[in-house]
């Protein structure tokens, strides 16, 4: 059960942004390109210097070491990065329960990263991020390179994870229909704050 709270957050000359996501809630976020959606997510994950406070339940970001914060508040970037040759090396050899729901056999762990399609990378990056059992998920267009069947699989998986663990989810999407489907509330990002979004 985890609430994510953002208070007067300013980053890269934008903001202040204030935001509250209840436990188990998913909030969709849209906005014109260049409005700073990704920058906002980076600041919440404490990857960029920022002013203002971010809090998970009663724990402010500044009170725990940053790596620990990022395990709890997981940012899934629009483009995933892979450093080792084999997929399995990125999972530290641990069993991953999210492969099947995302349409992979366990053999995927032996695959070469260089031969993955962009859609496969995107789904595997989600599975990899969930391995930390984050209490909050910041998803930056997590289905941008997926076909309809896989979009549905990802949406189902995130919804399941959210209800099982009570994680808070902030979902950036370009697609109004998807924002409508996944979010209980909808936000529109401008350079100076949020507005209610009616997808």
């Amino acid at each position: 059960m985890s609430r994510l709270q953002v208070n007067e957050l300013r980053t890269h000359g934008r903001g202040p942004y204030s935001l509250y996501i209840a436990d188990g809630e998913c909030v969709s976020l849209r906005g014109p390109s260049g409005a700073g959606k990704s920058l906002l997510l980076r600041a919440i994950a404490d990857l960029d210097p920022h002013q203002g406070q971010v809090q998970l339940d009663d724990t402010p970001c500044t009170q725990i070491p940053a790596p620990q914060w990022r395990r709890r508040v997981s940012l899934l970037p629009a483009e995933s990065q892979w450093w080792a040759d084999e997929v399995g090396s990125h999972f530290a050899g641990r069993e991953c329960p999210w492969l099947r729901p995302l349409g992979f056999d366990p053999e995927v762990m032996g695959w070469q990263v260089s031969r993955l399609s962009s859609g496969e990378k995107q789904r595997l990056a989600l599975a990899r991020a969930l391995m930390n059992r984050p209490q909050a998920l910041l998803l930056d267009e997590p289905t941008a390179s997926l076909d309809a069947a896989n979009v549905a699989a990802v949406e189902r998986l995130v919804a399941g994870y959210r209800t099982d663990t009570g994680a808070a989810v902030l979902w950036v999407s370009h697609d109004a229909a998807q924002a409508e489907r996944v979010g209980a509330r909808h936000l529109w990002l401008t350079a100076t704050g949020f507005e209610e979004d009616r997808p």
Partner: protein
Amino acid sequence: MITLSALDLSLAACLVLALAALSWRMRLGLSGQLLVAAARTVVQLLLVGLVLKALFAHVHLLWIGGISLVMLLAAGREVMARQQRRFTGGWGFGLGTGAMFVSSFAIAILTLVTIIGADPWYEPQYAVPLLGMLLGNTMNGIALALDRLTATAWQQRAVIEQRLMLGATRHEAITDIRREAMRSGMMPIINAMSVAGLVSLPGMMTGQILAGSPPVEAVKYQILIMFLISAGTGFGVTTALWLAAKRLFDERHRLRLDTLNSPRNY
């Protein structure tokens, strides 16, 4: 020992002039650089020769300290000049210079006191060449390693940040890159030790033999120097990379490439 006359050196200079003329005829655009470099060699080495002559005549710790400082600062400037992306502010100069100071001076003093044991320990005939060789090689290693570290961190920032996003510490996020940088800094001296005597006769040993030392004595000094250089380079590179890798992140384990300048325009 056969001393060289001015005529002997002029003959050798004619070879360089001939090469410059050839380069000019072939429009290689190298003749200017070649002549300037050759002229610098003559002037710089003659000056150093005079300085060393004066130094040998007036043995005093202050003089040795002074010339050591000049050598260190010159080496530090050279390390900085060889960086594509150097750290901003005083770090650009201080980081490499500090690492060289720690490793080269510590090893030089240790060697002078415990291994060579001259009297006084700072006897310039031993101290200056030893420090010079240590600094020169450590400088190469540190320049290569730092350049590799910062260039790779810049290119692979997305990968570094991905690892941070997954909860890696700054140390874990840069460790592969740091290992690569360490390898490139150490490669020259490891290669030099591997082929010493087989492919190349090291310059110092060759010089001693030409100057009339018994070969085995020259070899013993060369082995000593090689070991010192590899230790000095290794400790210097390790220190420089440790500082640089720390500097690339802030206390919240964020990658801060704003600590680096944009590459120089050549």
